[in-house]
């Protein structure tokens, strides 16, 4: 059941579970998603997939070719359009122009969520890679406290090994969190409650799929 939805992070809070335990949860708004196109292995696309749209966009912000796509599908212009690969037996669940929501996640206990993490800017090795920094800060040590130390050997190999952890841009990258536990599904409001946190800021766009282990 390789289904998927496009959603939005609403925020975090806490809920009491059936045993009275306080559970940290993230609320996701996942839908309605509109089916813009269904691609079939037997057709000219050569593979099974569905193109979903989420959110709304002003007509004046949509260019002509895009508008044609939405018109052809018979849906209002969407803010985000993403494609999800499907298994052959799931093709029947999607009809062009129709909407889908969190109801299709009924019975699913774990999900994978992909989003864009919060950007932290250009960060040093201590914040970015959890380096320890210099252990000595006196006895003549100067301007070395938060440095990463040596980045390699000398004449051999005469270069820095690829993937060497150094300072640089942190965050604002695509991050997937796997196996998040689904705490609640509210089909009529298209809301999902998920245990724990989800990448990105509030209102961030998320790609939500049933956990890879359940697919």
């Amino acid at each position, binding site marked *: 059941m390789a289904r998927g939805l496009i959603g939005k992070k609403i925020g975090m*809070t806490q809920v*009491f579970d059936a045993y009275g335990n306080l559970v940290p949860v993230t609320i996701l708004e996942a839908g309605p998603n509109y089916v813009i196109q269904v691609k079939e292995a037997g057709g000219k696309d050569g593979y099974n997939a569905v193109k979903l749209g989420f959110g709304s966009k002003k007509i004046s912000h949509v260019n002509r070719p895009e508008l044609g796509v939405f018109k052809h599908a018979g849906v209002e212009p969407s803010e985000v359009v993403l494609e999800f690969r499907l298994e052959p037996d799931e093709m029947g669940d999607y009809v062009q122009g129709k909407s889908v929501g969190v109801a299709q996640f009924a019975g699913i206990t774990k999900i994978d969520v992909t989003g864009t993490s919060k950007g932290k800017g250009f960060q040093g090795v201590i914040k970015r890679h959890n380096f320890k920094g210099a252990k000595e800060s006196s006895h003549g040590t100067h301007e070395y406290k938060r440095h990463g130390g040596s980045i390699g050997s000398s004449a051999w190999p005469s270069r820095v090994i690829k993937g060497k952890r150094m300072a640089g841009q942190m965050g604002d990258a695509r991050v997937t969190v796997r196996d998040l536990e689904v705490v609640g599904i509210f089909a009529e409001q298209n809301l999902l409650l998920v245990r724990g946190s989800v990448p990105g800021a509030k209102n961030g766009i998320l790609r939500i799929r049933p956990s890879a282990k359940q697919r």
Partner: protein
Amino acid sequence: MNTHVALENLERLQLRQDVPQFKAGDTLRVHLRIREGEKERIQVFEGVCIGRHNDGLRSSFTVRKVSYNIGVERVFPLHSPRIERIEVKDRGRVRRAKLYYLRDLRGKKARIRSLRDIRA
């Protein structure tokens, strides 16, 4: 910070309506549901409320008692379904919101005057 309607609703639905009025200095009897395997029983934790933290669903309160000469404090989520009920045994007269100073006092000094005695 804008709070989304859905988030507010979710939190409001979980708020308990049966919480009595109490504040720091009051002596409380907190009736707790304790699960032991299949059985459920009620345990009472009795002590002085030494502080409240008011924050909607995340509200909590701290109860302090001295048990066998050892000070014991428990923090309860105010809206927890594990709390059967909260009984206010006595109202105390105190001059601050957080009674952390009680931790350094013992015996007669750690007493709190009851509001009843003052009125009488």
